[in-house]
């Protein structure tokens, strides 16, 4: 057998491959050669073969067959073997495989080897990938090495101890004695790793933290020496002595000083010194300053020091280096809550960062800007933010728009300004506005009573320009529907009233109905708006015509609305004025932050329902947070019992259950249709389940097929895609007796015109006392759409005796076979 090719040779060869296929071929050939070499237990070339395997592994090819070989290499006496063996172990083995435990003994031996480099290899491997079991077994050895005077080993042992503690926190105690004089080391490697070890211990245990507080003076001294000492060639980085160690010490000081006045006091001076003396021309100096700032902000530092820290961040903002600016913005975001005034001083610089080219910086600047908005600077800030909204990338627009709405709501200097701001957002970023903004805005507009005429006029004009941005269109249609009378009467005070006729308004709204740009939801808004205008405009005939046309619309949603509006005209015309009356002011509780999605707040739902259904005359403004309360709380008003039409396709089963029993107070469009048009609002608040996904499937109600002697079998249905002739039935067998039913077998037979397929059951034991169910899927092919009938046979063993039963199932719901 010729000697296996060398590693470099292999690499060279593989790199000549032109295609992936060629490369794969070469690799497979070589793998085969390596495998046979492994089988021959060739000691000389094992190292070479494993190295080649590692190369191929890096290219993405499987190399698990080399795992045991790595172990053999580790056990070898040759240093070369061990080096490659440990490397292979770190790359190929991981703690999920039991194989790795075989390493433990080798590592133990190597930890006690006479050569420090072998010990080093073992420590390194243990510290990188040691599993909990390995750590438990070898912690003692590590602890021993932590006390050695050999600094090469001591530093590695310290990091190994860190890893052990991370894996097995209970072992932390055993390393405590060894930490006694770690900080008196002169060797920077040991110092650094010791600080890491101390940090890890302090972070994990408050007791350790308290214990190590006494080290603060020593740490301060070490840090001072680093700063004051002259040039040290060994540790110098751009004129700064051992920045890595400085940063680590600063971090440990942060943890130690966090809630402790005395420690914080003790480190005040050194922090001030570092903050003022560190050279800022290179990244490394700024890294130290950054860590210093973080420490100052976290401990109980005096206010002068805090101002110093924020000023450093302010200077960072002006730095040419993008990374520094980014880091500054991130830190300022963290401190803006606690040191708001200090950060405010840098507001203009922050706002300038909105114009930065870098995406990450822009995002941070935007978040920070929103955090800085207050009553005093709202006008100026909003101008900048709106300008940003105009020109920013689409990924920002949604968040920015939400932020603007929120800020405007909190700090609007006047209602007119508020509405103008909203208009600006809707017209410039209208398609990016979040869906939940629409009801929020509607509620806002409703509540600004004196601005109704102005608002509807501006929205109308915006519609004339552009009907592509759905949220804008939706808000506008709603407003026109509500305040159309103000629009045509030309009552606007705030600006020059425009001359609009009723026909022009209806033209616009009808235009929305037919336009390709309108979403289904928008069309719904538009039709309702047209309907509402029937009580506000003088000419009703045109509206009647539109409504009757849409009574045969293909869109089920529109059709339903139109049919019901038609019914309003025909049979309930006396109710129409009351139903379509002006909305009252809606109450709303505080809203959420710009980046949070408005969900699970019952508050938003009532306003949605309100805006969709003109409520009866004297509806009290409910503070209700609960959908149920809102709908049920209208008992005061004379109601018309409209039966909720059972339209299974339009609402999830759960929703129907909720609302089916309530007397819906004279609402022409029953609640379930609301669900289809505004799914995200109602359903979000009700449950976190994606109810809407169930809607298509929950068309067929479940049924109980068999219920005897404690065994109950329910059938649930779905339509199988793509074949609509196949009904997929899932049986759920539950057992209410005291003992388990074992060897449970379910069999079914169907008439000849059907075909049946029974898939395997989830188990054949039905647990007692309804603790669980056995499920099984049946697929029934019903090409002739005949009524589904089934005969079922059940066999099981209960308390040792076998039970058998036959039954007919005839109560299948019509939807399952039609």
């Amino acid at each position, binding site marked *: 057998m010729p000697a296996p090719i*060398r590693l470099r040779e292999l690499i060279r060869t593989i790199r000549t491959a032109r295609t992936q296929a060629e490369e794969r071929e070469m690799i497979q050939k070589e793998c085969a050669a390596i495998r046979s070499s492994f089988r021959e237990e060739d000691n000389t070339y094992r190292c070479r073969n494993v190295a080649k395997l590692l190369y191929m592994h890096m290219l993405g090819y499987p190399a698990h067959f080399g795992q045991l070989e790595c172990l053999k290499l580790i056990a070898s006496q*040759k240093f070369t073997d061990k080096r490659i063996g440990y*490397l292979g172990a770190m790359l190929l083995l991981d703690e999920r495989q039991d194989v790795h435990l075989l390493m433990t003994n080798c590592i133990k031996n190597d930890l006690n080897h006479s050569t420090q480099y072998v010990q080093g290899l073992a420590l390194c491997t243990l510290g990188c990938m040691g599993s909990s079991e390995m750590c438990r077994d070898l912690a003692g050895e590590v602890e021993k090495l932590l006390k050695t005077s050999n600094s090469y080993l001591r530093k590695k042992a310290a990091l190994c101890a860190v*890893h052990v503690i991370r894996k097995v926190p209970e072992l932390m105690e055993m390393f405590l004695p060894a930490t006694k004089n770690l900080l008196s080391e002169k060797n920077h490697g040991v110092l650094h790793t010791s600080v890491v070890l101390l940090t890890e211990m302090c972070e994990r245990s408050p007791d350790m933290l308290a214990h190590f507080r006494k080290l603060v003076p020593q740490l301060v001294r070490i840090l001072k020496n680093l700063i004051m000492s002259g040039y040290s060639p*060994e540790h110098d980085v751009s004129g700064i002595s051992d*920045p890595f160690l400085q940063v680590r010490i600063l971090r440990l000081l942060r943890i130690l000083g966090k809630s402790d006045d005395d420690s914080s006091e003790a480190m005040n001076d050194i922090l001030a010194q570092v903050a003022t003396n560190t050279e800022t021309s290179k*990244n490394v100096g700024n890294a130290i300053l950054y860590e210093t700032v973080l420490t100052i902000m976290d401990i109980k530092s005096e206010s002068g020091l805090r101002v110093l820290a924020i000023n450093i961040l302010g200077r960072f903002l002006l730095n040419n280096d*993008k990374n520094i600016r980014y880091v500054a913005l991130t830190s300022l975001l963290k401190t803006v809550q606690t040191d708001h005034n200090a950060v405010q001083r840098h507001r203009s610089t922050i706002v300038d960062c909105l114009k930065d080219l870098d995406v990450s910086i822009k995002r941070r600047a935007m978040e920070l800007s929103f955090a800085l908005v207050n009553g005093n600077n709202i006008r100026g800030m909003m101008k900048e933010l709106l300008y940003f909204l105009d020109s920013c990338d689409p990924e920002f627009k949604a968040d920015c728009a939400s932020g603007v709405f929120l800020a405007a709501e909190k700090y609007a200097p006047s209602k007119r300004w508020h509405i103008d701001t909203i208009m600006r957002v809707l017209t410039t970023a209208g398609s990016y506005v979040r869906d939940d903004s629409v009801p929020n805005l509607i509620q806002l507009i409703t509540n600004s009573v004196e601005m109704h005429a102005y608002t509807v006029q501006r929205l109308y004009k915006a519609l004339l320009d552009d009907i592509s941005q759905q949220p804008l269109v939706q808000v506008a249609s709603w407003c026109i529907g509500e305040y159309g009378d103000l629009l045509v009467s030309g009552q606007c005070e705030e600006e020059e009233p425009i001359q609009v006729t009723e026909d022009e308004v209806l033209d616009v709204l009808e235009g929305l109905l037919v336009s390709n740009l309108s979403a289904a939801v928008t069309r719904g808004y538009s039709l309702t708006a047209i309907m509402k205008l029937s009580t506000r405009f003088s000419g009703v005939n045109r509206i009647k015509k539109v409504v009757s046309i849409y009574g045969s619309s293909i869109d089920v949603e529109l059709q339903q609305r139109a049919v019901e509006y038609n019914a309003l005209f025909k049979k309930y015309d006396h109710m129409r004025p009351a139903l379509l009356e002006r909305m009252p002011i809606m109450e709303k509780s505080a809203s959420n932050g710009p980046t949070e999605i408005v969900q699970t707040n019952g508050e938003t739902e009532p306003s949605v329902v309100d805006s969709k259904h003109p409520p009866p005359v004297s509806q009290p403004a409910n503070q209700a947070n609960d959908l149920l309360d809102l709908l049920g709380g209208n008992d005061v008003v004379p109601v018309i019992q409209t039966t909720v039409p059972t339209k299974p396709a339009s609402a999830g089963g759960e929703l129907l259950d909720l609302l089916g029993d309530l007397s819906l107070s004279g609402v022409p469009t029953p609640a379930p249709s609301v669900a289809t048009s505004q799914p995200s609002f109602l359903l979000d608040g009700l449950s976190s389940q994606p109810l809407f996904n169930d809607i298509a499937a929950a068309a067929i109600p479940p049924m109980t097929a068999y219920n005897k002697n404690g065994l109950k079998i329910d059938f649930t249905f779905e339509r199988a895609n793509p074949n609509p002739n196949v009904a997929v039935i899932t049986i759920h067998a539950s057992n209410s007796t005291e003992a388990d039913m074992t060897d449970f077998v379910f069999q079914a037979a169907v008439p000849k015109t059907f075909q049946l397929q029974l898939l395997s059951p989830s188990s054949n034991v039905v647990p007692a006392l309804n603790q669980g169910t056995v499920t099984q899927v049946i697929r029934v092919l019903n090409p002739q759409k005949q009524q589904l009938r089934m005969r079922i046979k059940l066999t099981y063993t209960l308390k040792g005796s076998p039970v058998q039963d036959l039954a007919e199932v005839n109560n299948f719901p019509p939807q399952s076979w039609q």
Partner: protein
Amino acid sequence: MMRFLLLFSRQGKLRLQKWFTPMSEREKKKIIRDMTTMVLARQPRSCNFLHWKDLKVIYKRYASLYFCLAIENQENELIALEVIHRYVELLDKYFGNVCELDIIFNFEKAYFILDEFLIGGEIQETSKQMVNRSIEASDMLQEVRCAGTHSHTQHETWLASVV
């Protein structure tokens, strides 16, 4: 702590992977894919920091190689840049004007150097000279312990003769 370090070329070919937490092969492959896609898509003058899941990813390009280091959220990004730079300096000292080819053909040595610089996601030695001395001494040890190879002064040649 650092979670992982990846080196890959401009075409997305992996040159080195160091993982400091246990992960399945599939997870590793996914992360490598994600990282290469994200980093290679970045504009040339962007800042060197990315957010990915709950980690901060610091990347820097040196010639044709991207160095990609993922750190936990509470770590200092700016010093992470220095960590990457220090590793490049160590490689440079060892190989003499290191280039991508050096790392391709001597990947195991790149790992050995890394293992003298970092352990378990933390820095073990802050002095460049100390790391270099340890590597040289280990290399010497390989030479001495290897039966049948005569001593060379060049690392390249005699290590090549074994592997």
